[in-house]
């Protein structure tokens, strides 16, 4: 396998966007090409989950290639639920590493807000098992809530810990000009004050309004190239050094150990092994916090903290931007937003920005090794990426 490097990145605001979905994909792609200084690509992998159902459009990859006047480059859409982004990056990596292509554009885009919240909730619920979960009205928040209850029972995580994740990520998002939410929140406002139940009502008990990420539109893009092309472009040399992926049972009730996220554990281990690194080497990470509980659990399963102790590290401030292992400096899904297809690519965008040293106020000092975890379904398909700055 050849080594694969990042040549350029681009991103839109994650917010409510009133543009056609193909433009939400094409705009950051154009930014990435400008960033890289490239005018041609060999292939586009486009990560997206809802184009057919929410936006009434199919064949989106082909549409975007044309919108960018990049025909006759090849194109395909990659759909892996919320892990579409990292899956598309994996596909792009394989295309370059195998020798098939030299320059691959990977973009992610989603326009959820074309429909109302009820429709969006149901659309995301289609990730659940149609015969043994969906029929009961199970939604992703319901899964996360049942999982949270078990975690609270077994490891002593409390609603306060969940609130701390939300407060941290909202504060980080304030430093991110692309983030969906620019709204600082306080523990007092969402948990302690007498009015907290109205400020922060239950969505699926024990998860509350501020434990769940917003519904966002947005797009992000990253260009993967060979070592030769990367060096010729004069950008900081950032290698996509490790990729790991693992699946788990579709029906959440069939998971071996109800409090484990085995797919996260395996995907992370695979990613570190491929990169020849360990969790201790990581300087900055973007973990998939669609629900605040997930940031805590993923931080354990990928290996930053022992199982069941993620919330203790959170209490000590170890995951703040200035902490030992900063998690979600961008604001994470909670603060930055979660346009489903774009998220995985957005996480990669943030890590590359950090490794380049251009993250402004949210810069993690001396970041050289970055890690992302993109969580599909409710943990039945997880893709982890490891990036290394080489120069």
């Amino acid at each position: 396998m050849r080594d694969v490097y990042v040549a350029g990145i681009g991103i839109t605001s994650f917010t409510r966007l009133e543009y056609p979905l193909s433009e939400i994909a094409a705009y950051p792609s154009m930014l990435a090409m400008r960033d890289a200084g490239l005018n041609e690509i060999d292939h586009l992998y486009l990560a997206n989950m809802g184009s057919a159902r929410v936006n009434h459009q199919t064949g989106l990859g082909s549409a975007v290639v044309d919108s960018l006047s990049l025909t006759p480059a090849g194109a395909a859409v990659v759909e892996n639920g919320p892990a579409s982004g990292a899956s598309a990056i994996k596909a792009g990596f394989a295309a370059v590493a195998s020798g098939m292509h030299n320059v691959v554009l990977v973009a992610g885009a989603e326009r959820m807000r074309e429909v109302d919240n009820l429709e969006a909730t149901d659309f995301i619920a289609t990730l659940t098992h149609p015969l043994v979960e969906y029929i009961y009205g199970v939604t992703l928040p319901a899964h996360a809530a049942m999982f949270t209850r078990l975690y609270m029972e077994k490891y002593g995580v409390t609603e306060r810990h969940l609130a701390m994740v939300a407060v941290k990520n909202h504060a980080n998002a304030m430093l991110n000009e692309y983030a969906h939410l620019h709204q600082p929140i306080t523990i007092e406002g969402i948990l302690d004050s007498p009015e907290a139940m109205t400020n922060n009502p239950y969505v699926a008990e024990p998860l509350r309004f501020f434990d769940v990420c917003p519904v966002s539109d947005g797009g992000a893009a990253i260009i993967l190239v060979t070592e030769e092309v990367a060096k010729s472009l004069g950008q900081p040399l950032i290698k996509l050094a490790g990729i790991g992926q693992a699946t788990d049972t579709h029906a959440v009730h069939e998971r071996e150990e109800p409090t484990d996220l085995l797919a996260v554990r395996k995907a992370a281990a695979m990613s570190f092994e491929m990169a020849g690194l360990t969790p201790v080497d990581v300087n900055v990470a973007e973990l998939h916090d669609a629900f605040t509980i997930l940031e805590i659990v993923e931080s354990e399963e990928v290996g930053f903290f022992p199982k069941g102790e993620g919330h203790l590290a959170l209490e000590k401030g170890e995951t703040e931007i200035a902490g030992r292992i900063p998690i979600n400096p961008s604001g994470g899904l909670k603060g930055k937003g979660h346009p489903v297809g774009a998220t995985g690519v957005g996480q990669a965008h943030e890590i590359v920005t950090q490794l380049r040293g251009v993250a402004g106020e949210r810069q993690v000092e001396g970041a050289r090794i970055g890690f992302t975890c993109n969580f599909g379904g409710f943990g039945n398909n997880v893709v982890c990426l490891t990036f290394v700055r080489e120069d």
Partner: protein
Amino acid sequence: MSVDLEKILRPIDTPMAAFEAKFMTLANGAPMVIRQIERDEIPDVLAHLEPLLHVERDMYDVVCARIYSELLAHYRHRAQDEYVLVAQIDGELAAVVNGRQITPARGMSLHTIALRRGLRVGAHAFAAKMEYHIDVLGHDEVLIVAEGPIGFRRWMIEYQLEKRFDTPHELGGVPSWALTKELFDRARSDLVVGRRPVPAHLLGKAQEKILPPSDPPKPAADLLAATRSMYDSTGSVLMSQRWRQEPGVERA
């Protein structure tokens, strides 16, 4: 002559008990004051509402147009037994709610409009309105309708209102739902939030002046934005102008 005519045209308001101001802490830790206003403060509110007439999403334009006319009618003495409550954050207008008393036993909730998103301001303001009808004015029930899906989900489904489909609501004559005293009492712990009395400095700031909202919902860059993406591919020049406002443009 004109003075006599005004006597005929102007409705005579039934005396209604006053809403005692209250305050609550929002998700961002800031306090919000909800208080009743009289006619003299309505012109300020109207000025702050006006820009929302052009925000199409989430039914802001319809709600704003209707509440604007209701407030104006109240101001000009052409509406009977109407009340207005405002929510203020550091003096800035955050929400407006209004309604009417139809009979001493029945109220009609008119509108709720939030000028600050993301902090559940609308939920607080609506609850204050229900408290006013049932606890303060002593109504047995309040008639309610929702213009948009957000309102419908929050009020009809969450509070499990009773259908009163035989009773047309003043808003466009559509079938109403009712919040009865019984339902209100059941949901009291969730609905009646906020504390009294309001600390003097907070109340003073709120009463001093109703300030314009610093981050209100804004209209899209052009009027066609909401529809263009689905049906109309022209106007792309306007869209590309808006793309220029994206944060990444300078550095690209």
